């Protein structure tokens, strides 16, 4: 088991074995991140590969101001955003009508498998999916998201509300479909 320093030094030298070790350690987590931002599994694999290439190319500049995992996560998210920037340029996000945010009945995500949650997120429109990931899961604020994506804060909020509304609808439908509440699906 290599320490973080050993991984950084080995990757800086271009040691393929160390690079593989780093990849094996962080790939499982990064794969989920990429799946959340991608529309399809193929797209997620592309983002994952491009992200790790950037990690190995820039690891010599890593200043250890954060953990290696956090740094790699940031690279993966930026790679995913770059991937979608062109799509967002061609189909810019606009403010949508205020979604019906009437509180749904209490939902618990613990009844859903990780893959199902990922599938729900992937089913969202591109803009909604990215903003949902950034706001709800990564923890960015709408102002930061607006700066990152070159959109207005209002657009960010409205797109997020739409994503939230769609997800709540999906969760409700799934729960009704299986008729189970509080039980984890097998």
């Amino acid at each position: 088991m290599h320490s973080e320093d050993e991984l950084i030094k080995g990757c800086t030298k271009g040691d393929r074995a160390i690079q593989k070790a780093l990849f094996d350690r962080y790939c499982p987590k990064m794969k989920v991140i990429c799946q959340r931002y991608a529309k399809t599994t193929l797209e997620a694999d592309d983002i994952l590969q491009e992200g790790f290439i950037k990690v190995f190319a820039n690891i010599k500049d890593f200043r250890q101001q954060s953990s290696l995992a956090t740094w790699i996560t940031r690279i993966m998210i930026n790679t995913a955003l770059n991937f979608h920037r062109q799509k967002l340029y061609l189909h810019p996000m606009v403010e949508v009508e205020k979604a019906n945010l009437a509180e749904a009945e209490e939902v618990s995500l613990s009844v859903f498998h990780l893959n199902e949650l990922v599938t729900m997120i992937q089913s969202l429109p591109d803009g909604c999916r990215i903003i949902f990931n950034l706001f709800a899961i990564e923890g960015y604020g709408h102002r930061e998201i607006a700066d990152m994506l070159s959109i207005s804060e209002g657009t960010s909020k409205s797109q997020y509300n739409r994503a939230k509304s769609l997800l709540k609808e999906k969760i409700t439908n799934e729960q009704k479909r299986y008729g189970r509440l509080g039980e984890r699906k097998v």
Partner: protein
Amino acid sequence: MEDWEKGKFEKEWRDAFVNAEDEGSTEAAWKNIDLQLSQAEGKAMKRSVIFYQRLAAASILFALISVAVALYNSTIFESTTTPSLAQQPTQNRSIPGDKNSPKQPAGGVEQSDQLNSTTDKKDKGRTSGGYRRSNVTLATSSPQATAFAQTTQALDERVNYRQAVDQRLLNYPPLAVVESQVNLISRYREVTLYRQLPAFPASYMANSPSKKSNKEQVWASVGAAAGTFSPNLSSPQAYFSAGMPNDIDASSRSGYSKSSDVGSAYTFGFSMGTKFSKRWVMQGGINYLNQSLGYQSNLQQLDASNQYSTALVGRTSGQPVKVTTPYQISSINEIISVPLQAGYLIVDRKFGFQLNTGFATDLFLRNSLVDESGQLKRSTEGAGSSSPYRTMSWAGLLNSELSYRIGDRYRVSIVPGLRYSLNSVFKSESGSVSNPLVTDVGFRFRYIFR
């Protein structure tokens, strides 16, 4: 973060993914990553190989140009160090007592007698044994005649030597052709070298979109240079006819001016440049040129304020002159030059190597003749209709620029180069021809705007 906006819904989703991992197979992903890393390493090695090959090509090119210039200079000096008898004014070909005097006709043939007939009365004390002030006539029995005969023999040998040198030069191709061949060779050598690069797969030859390029697009620079100045005078030695109407005291001696082979030159100026394609740049600016050449002269001229000042043969503008003891003069040409050059970036990185060529429009400001001892007043000749100097001329430029970028905005360079005047600095009616060649090394400091 606007935490107050995040409620239970967001917390549920965040908690669901906080340590989420996909345990599926990653081998396919790693294979692709491994392949791309190998390709990137191959490209880096190829870039490094090409960089050193181009550096080697540039060094060879520069060495060839330097050798060509050195050969050209040595050829010019060889042909100008021996006096050219044909270039001497026909009316006065001799300086009595001067070892370098040309051959005197045997038998004491008189020449220019009518010019000197009035001078006999002035300095009678100088005549002796049949010696005539015409400076071309000697009685064959006089000691001077013997001395002249000996001088003549030495001069004959020198003339024969010069003719032999000329003959040797004729057997070699003209230097201009050699220079053009060098340029052709250097140009095609680069192409040949490039074609001889090892063949890489097509994927390696394609430019990577992520390849960083030098972002210098527009810049301004100040620079200075110093070097040697070869005048390439058609007549490095020129003679003034004694007894001419503006000869003040019609002394027995004739005036002459003899130039040094090499002088000094310095330049400073300002320029701006822009990159108009990936490897090509254009630069232009304005420079002040100062070219100084040493002379030995025995002429002084009387200026408008009735003071004696420095003078050279052919540059007295009709002012009264007199012959005096020889003294050293610095002839200083001051010129404003407007160069325009195209440059090719052979190496375009933090270290840069660039080859520039172009031409300059030279505006003649003035020529100053300065007595090096400081005793005589300096004489100055500007441009104009009465000046022997051409007001505007053109020069060809060739230099290389070795540079180093400091930070994002600055670049310092060393610039060795050549400058050759394409037309004579003298007007055609002046009788003199001079196409100066300047070789110098400069220093340039560049500020990059964008």
